[in-house]
């Protein structure tokens, strides 16, 4: 089994402002990684680079087994990203949204497949309603349905719990655990020590444009993690 993520020396600068200095990161298949870091640490930038939305200024590696720089098209077929945007068209219904994205990705878009995907995220009741009427939590679910439709091997989640209520958070965890159980890998970027940690196999901290810690979750208790986090982010300031 190839590694889900295996990148070295990623640097990304916007003009003169380097957001990521030197990021090395690896993630095995079937693992959930919680990527912690304060706001502005570059988590979103890193997620976007892994999703091939941004090109690194230098460095490289493999994502889902494919070369980050040379094979972005192949990576895109294997990776699902849930970022700040849900990629939901407000004037289309839930089902129409799925149909659009499935067709764009070259996946089967018959009514049966779409209904099944909507049922998996508990949206089959509102399949025919326009996304404009949805809460932000529902839009996230719809986004997740779109992602899972493509049967990705790696999920990149940027603050996945934002905008979800307690029930939604619990539900998301179940989905992620199920995904991991099938051999999928998850990278979850978050600035809070909230729920994400409980299902994480590994914890990494991004600060000052580098990964300053990457350890199995089991080897850390929460107190120690808080201490290390404070240390890492103070260093940065």
């Amino acid at each position, binding site marked *: 089994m190839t590694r889900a993520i295996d990148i070295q020396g990623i640097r990304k600068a916007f003009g003169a402002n380097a957001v990521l200095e030197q990021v090395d990161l690896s993630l095995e298949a079937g693992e959930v990684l919680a990527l912690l870091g304060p706001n502005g640490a570059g988590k979103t930038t890193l997620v976007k680079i892994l999703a091939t939305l941004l090109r690194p200024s230098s460095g490289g590696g493999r994502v889902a087994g494919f070369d980050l720089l040379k094979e972005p098209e192949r990576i895109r*077929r294997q990776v699902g990203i849930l970022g700040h945007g849900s*990629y*939901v068209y407000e*004037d*289309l219904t839930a089902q129409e949204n799925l149909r659009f*994205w499935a067709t764009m990705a070259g996946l089967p878009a018959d009514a049966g497949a779409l209904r099944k995907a909507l049922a998996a995220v508990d949206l089959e009741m509102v399949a025919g309603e326009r996304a404009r009427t949805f809460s932000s939590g529902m839009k996230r679910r719809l986004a997740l349905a779109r992602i899972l439709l493509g049967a990705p091997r790696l999920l990149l989640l940027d603050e996945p719990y934002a905008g979800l209520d307690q029930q939604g958070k619990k539900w998301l965890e179940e989905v992620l655990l199920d995904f991991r159980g099938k051999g999928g890998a998850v990278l979850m970027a978050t600035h809070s020590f909230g729920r994400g940690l409980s299902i994480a196999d590994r914890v990494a901290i991004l600060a000052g444009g580098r990964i300053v810690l990457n350890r199995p979750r089991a080897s850390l208790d929460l107190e120690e993690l808080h201490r290390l986090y404070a240390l890492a982010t103070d260093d940065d300031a």
Partner: protein
Amino acid sequence: MMFARRAWIVLWKDLLTERRSKESLNALFFFAVLLLFLFEFALGPDRERLTAALPGLLWLGFILAGLLGLGRTFLVERENDCWEGLLLTPGDKGAIYLGKLAVNFLLMAAVAIVLLGLFGIFYNVDLWASLAPLSIVIFLGTVGLASVGTLFGAMTSQVRARELLFPLLLLPVQVPVLLGTVKATEAVLQGLALAEVAHWLKLLAAADLVYLVVGILTFEFVLEA
């Protein structure tokens, strides 16, 4: 095959959105009526003068409407970062360009027909006689405007001074299309055969083709975040 399906689904999605929001079309029709009145006020009620200037006014109005309408089609992609999603879809991005182009073409063709109809009614021009040749000219002109407009519209939708930059880029490039369509329309309205303006039609067709090819090939680079 996949290419055509993708292009089609983009068209389907945008037409559905437009039908539900009715944002662009209603505004553009209203804009066309406004233009008609403005031309009338600017040139006075002298019918002779208006008729002489008609082809120019028609296409000027058309291009002005295009400046408003063409830039808009990519704004819907900015909502919820759909733009990013399009970029991440595997495969040739030219399909997205073609789909968007088809949307813009239909939008602008509708505007052209309305504009033409209004001119016919208000200025008492007999359009029926020259309808067939006129529609060829409109087709060629609309493809020319929409093909560059789609490319530049995608580009400028990501730029701060969008409303400013879009016309600055589009208008000079569109000069050949404006010249060709105005000249051809003039001839057609005078009742001349299309063969008389064959060189203009060929030029328009060549321009359309060149713009289309450049658009399909370079769209990928415009879409990138």
